[in-house]
């Protein structure tokens, strides 16, 4: 089992973190809608914002919008700002229009943006008002995905946190397990099968695939975060009496083992049974990782801040594939949730939180890592400078958690290196 003790206390937990302020080359939380609207199948995301917000969503969604998407933007116009139109009346009209077009929608999120927040449009009151109006058919909630408050994956955190107060109270005396974080269906099913085999149950997921199937929560709820960016959601669940199980994030064989083990311990699963149950998956993961190892071992890697997945992924690449993290940047460092991860990072790793993109790029150019994990705004320009990159968004848009995706996860990092060696142009 991978625990900090196994790898010694030589990690990064005491390393000073470089904190920088300046231009941040990151997405805002609205982008979370791109995957959340696919995960919760009867939910609709209505952004209240500007043309910029609508433009971001359609640029980011790319081809996905070929299908009728379950998101749209209520664009604030001049007359809304000038007070010629009452923003609340306008919003009511838009919501009516939207629900008429999509009568199948059971859960509507009013998503705050920078403009709606700067003009202090009270979307939580609007949501409450509209919930009454459309009561019985559609629940209406609100969260902020604005750039001024959220970075990329924090949009999911804000969305899930908004769901928590509405979850049914679980008063049962029997403990239950909640997996928190929107995972690809295939990964979710794998985890549910594993917990079932371990005899842990009932197991719920937040979010559920349908608005009507959201999990109950109560003092006997134990929850496992599947993603490192869920600080607000964790706090909201703890406010409802639930207990977080501390674990590594389920990336790679070791991370997944530790994550499952945290649940097994909390539910009193026998150590022998635990090992026996997870052995096949763990073995498969290790075999799959062995394929990528020759290409990745000893290679130096830098992460630019993007999703908060950087630290767990750097840990995975360092301890399971022998990569050497040079700089690991994260938009926000949640020390408590990442304590065990930090302890496993090589002590020489440079940690940074926040960004001044020009200065950070200067460091990347000076470090010349073998692989740079960065956003799509930087990937092609760095490639043109001769630096090999792995674009970071793919890590959020691919099944990467759990034993059976460990090989795929490693391959995401190996592929750009393999391609670089393959091309003769």
């Amino acid at each position, binding site marked *: 089992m991978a625990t900090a003790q196994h790898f010694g206390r030589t990690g990064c937990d005491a390393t000073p973190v470089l904190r920088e302020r300046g231009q941040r080359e990151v997405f805002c939380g609205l982008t979370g809608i791109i995957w959340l609207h696919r995960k919760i199948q009867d939910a609709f995301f209505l952004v209240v914002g500007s043309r910029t917000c609508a*433009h971001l969503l*359609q640029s980011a969604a790319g081809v996905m919008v070929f299908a009728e998407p379950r998101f749209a933007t209520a664009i604030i116009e001049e007359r809304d700002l000038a007070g010629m139109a009452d923003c609340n009346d306008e919003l009511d009209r838009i919501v009516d229009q939207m629900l008429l077009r999509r009568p199948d929608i059971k859960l509507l999120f009013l998503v705050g943006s920078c403009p709606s927040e700067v003009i202090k449009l009270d979307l939580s009151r609007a949501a409450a008002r509209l919930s009454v109006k459309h009561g019985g058919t559609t629940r209406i909630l609100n969260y902020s995905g604005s750039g001024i408050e959220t970075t990329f994956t924090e949009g999911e955190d804000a969305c899930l946190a908004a769901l928590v107060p509405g979850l049914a109270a679980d008063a049962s005396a029997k403990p239950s397990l909640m997996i928190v974080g929107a995972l690809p269906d295939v990964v979710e099913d794998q985890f549910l099968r594993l917990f079932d085999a371990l005899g842990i149950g009932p197991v719920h997921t937040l979010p559920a695939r349908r608005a009507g199937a959201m999990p109950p929560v109560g003092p006997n709820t134990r929850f496992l975060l599947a993603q490192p960016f869920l600080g607000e959601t964790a706090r909201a669940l703890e406010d409802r009496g639930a207990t977080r199980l501390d674990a590594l994030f389920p990336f790679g064989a070791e991370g997944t083992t530790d994550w499952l083990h945290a649940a097994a311990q909390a539910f009193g699963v026998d150590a022998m049974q635990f090992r026996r149950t997870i052995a096949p998956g763990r073995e498969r993961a290790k075999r799959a990782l062995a394929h990528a190892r020759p290409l990745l071992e000893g290679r130096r890697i830098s992460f630019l801040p993007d999703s908060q997945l950087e630290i767990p992924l750097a840990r995975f690449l360092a301890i399971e594939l022998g990569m050497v993290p040079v700089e690991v940047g994260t938009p926000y460092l949640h020390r408590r949730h990442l304590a065990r991860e930090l302890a496993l990072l090589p002590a020489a790793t440079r940690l940074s939180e926040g960004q001044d993109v*020009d200065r950070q790029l200067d460091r990347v150019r000076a470090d010349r890592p073998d692989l740079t994990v960065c956003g799509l705004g930087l990937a092609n320009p760095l490639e043109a400078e001769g630096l090999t990159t792995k674009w970071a968004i793919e890590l959020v848009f691919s099944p990467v958690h759990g034993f059976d995706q460990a090989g795929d996860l490693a391959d995401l990092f190996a592929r750009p290196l393999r391609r670089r060696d393959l091309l003769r142009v």
Partner: protein
Amino acid sequence: MQLTVWTYEGPPHVGAMRIATAMEDVHYVLHAPQGDTYADLLFTMIERRGKRPPVTYTTFQARDLGKDTAALFQTAARDAYARFTPGAMLVGASCTAELIQDDPAGLVAAMDLPCPVVALELPSYQRKENWGAAETFYQLVRTLAASPAPNRSNARPTANILGPTALGFRHRDDVIEVRRILNALGIAVNVVAPLGATTADIARLPAADFNICLYPEIADTACRWLAREHGQPVVTTVPIGHGATRDFIAELAALTGIDPAGACDPGHLPWWSRSVDSTYLTGKRVFIFGDATHAIAAARVARDELGFEVVGLGCYNREFARDLRAAAALYGVTPLITDDYLVVEEAIQALQPELVLGTQMERHIAKRLRIPCAVISAPVHVQDFPARYSPQMGFEGANVLFDTWVHPLVMGLEEHLLTMFRDDFEFSDMAGASHLAPLPVAPEPALQAVSPEVAPHPAPDASAARVWSADAERELLKIPFFVRGKARRNTERFAAERDVATITIDTLYDAKAHYAR
């Protein structure tokens, strides 16, 4: 507020970015919240540029709002100048920064930067991307090209090519094609701008004899100013299509007194279009939507050069509504001027064309309605920034248009066979054109009418309530799919006019005879 599923244009600061990115030594300092850097992806991914756009964002966050965001802006501008030492700097605000009113213009004036600075006023809640680009280009030209040209030498006529930008639909290749024409005529190119131009090039604009306004959406304002200020005539014909290219050459010839014969190239389009293989294209009903320039040009090519019938024509940029209305009058159609995707969708659904020529968004609509479609205008996605040479302008552009527009249609023989034999298990009209990937089988409109709950968008036609007899419904299915929608609509209209309650096979054929063309 406006409910927006799709937006045809980005906000105006994206237009300003397109100008800055197109140019070589201009830097743009944009006061914007964290997250607005998504716009970099448009250039690095859709256009696949190997350089970061020359844009510094202040990326303020909520915690900055209580403090001095103005100081944040000044620091960003100072650092950007020190790092990039541009020939000129643009400063401006995005939609959110516009709300907090830090006044980038005043702030940067107080800093006294050692380069020309253009402060942009782009009203984000009124205007959009093309307007932002046009305004930015105009302001840059005004600032940098204020002094008159020394004296123009008359040895060889010279022209500026104005309008091509970053993220422009086929701008890269259009410029090559237009240069080729100018070269054939012996006209020298003074400056191409903004694409590839430096600030020094902009200062040299007045040295040309005249300007070619290649993309009016971007360059019209600047061309008008140059005409007024420096007396440069403007060539306004946009050479998209065979006929328009000939007109363009004629306009150049008239302006310079050069014999146009040297630049005239037969191209392939006229012969391809006259060859008997193209006869079946006659009267194909086409719906056209895009920016005004491309839509108007496409309508002419569609009717005069391919023999289609233009059944709908529209644009999303209100700035050129007047030109579009005039063009629509030529084709006897109602102009559609809207930036509301849902309104465009409704129009296409009502008109039931056999081909849609539009933007990326019309591809979505056409896909849903299962109508063949080709892209003629921005907004476009990455596949419309191709590696190969593919202009829209000039004679080669006309060749490209011919291939692109005919490709989505079912070919002639296949069209006949689909009509004659309806039960082939492989080649059915449900599968679409056999040279394209098969479409997923969607319920026919006929079936949707029977079960309205599965049809997300009920037909807007009020006569939908009219009952089709089972026989007539089956007969309707024997009509080739690409005209079936129109046949259904005509029959229902025919029945409504005559107050026929139940549509029978006879009603169907009566209507066919009535509307026979």
